[in-house]
């Protein structure tokens, strides 16, 4: 069980991908993309954790900086990643609304780009 968090991250990646491929509703597809992104968060944060249980990287006194703490850098990266994920999700949802407006159909399997003459 030394890599259990990574296993779960891989699981979330694959589950999200499976959901996207078999999706029949655009909103469902967008939510599945969110699961993939969550996999990235897990991978990053798990890489910065420390046993025996370390402290959060918040130092109220100068003495605390000498204790072992978890990695703050991955946490900063994950924060950025969360913003990116939220941004993409919002854009995709807006596209979904517009697609519904102009086609009335939200099944990704039935949306076709160009017509055959």
């Amino acid at each position: 069980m030394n890599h259990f968090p990574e296993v779960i991250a891989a699981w979330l990646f694959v589950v999200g991908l499976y959901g996207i491929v078999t999706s029949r509703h655009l909103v469902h597809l967008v939510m599945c993309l969110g699961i993939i992104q969550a996999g990235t968060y897990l991978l990053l944060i798990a890489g910065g954790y420390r046993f025996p249980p370390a402290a959060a990287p918040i130092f109220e006194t100068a003495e605390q900086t000498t204790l072992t703490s978890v990695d703050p850098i991955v946490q900063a990266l994950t924060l950025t990643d969360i913003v990116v994920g939220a941004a993409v999700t919002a854009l995709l949802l807006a596209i979904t609304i517009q697609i519904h407006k102009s086609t009335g159909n939200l099944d990704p399997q039935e949306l076709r780009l160009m017509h055959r003459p």
Partner: protein
Amino acid sequence: MMERFRQIVALVLGMGLFTLLIWGWSALPNFGNYPGPNGDIVNRSARAERQVQNAVAAVVFDYRGFDTMGEEFIFLATVMGVSLLLRKPGRTTDEQAEGEQVIRKAANQPVDSNDAARTSGLVFVGLLVVLGAYVALHGHLSPGGGFQGGAIVAGGWLLIYLVGGSEMFHRLSSVVILDRVEALGVAAFILCGLVGWLLDGRFLGNWMPLGQAGRLGSAGTIFALNVLVGITVGAGFILLLREFIKHLDEVAPRRRP
């Protein structure tokens, strides 16, 4: 038929990918054995050098402040993109904002919101906004920061819609003001970086007085950028919500004749 086939292919490839990822990641250090060294250096030195209690905030706004600038622009680009996508065809968005004042008279009200519920709901709006501001202001001291605070404020604004209906929501979130606030927040972020660049060539360098760790105004530009990000993100999320709610108004009358 085709769909069945696609499902099977996805399953097979998914299992292959799952094995692959686990195989690859199994050679990483075991869980709980973060090897360093970068994070440890930050943990040991950030407080002394920047008078900041939260090392994550130090990374977000100082060590890797440039990433955060890029992230702010991703957020800005998204808000721009959503307002482009959800605009009414044939009209510019500013004209639209004026036109909506009229349409909105017929907008929907929540079904069972009596005055008591609305008043108590609005109290919670105030609470959430204050909480968000608190989280944003104390990002360099305790968990949280501009991004989290901004998102919480936007959550409070959502409550306005839930208890007060879209009319009140729209009245309290003017697109003209929020647009400017958001752009100003981002512009101020860059300008703050440029001041550092002008002073001694370090873009996004920490040029403000650092103060005393643990105080509200400490940590120099970390504090300032934190607040700016809070303003931008709050305004941006409210704008996003506004665009989505605006579209709801179009169907609402039809839904409940």
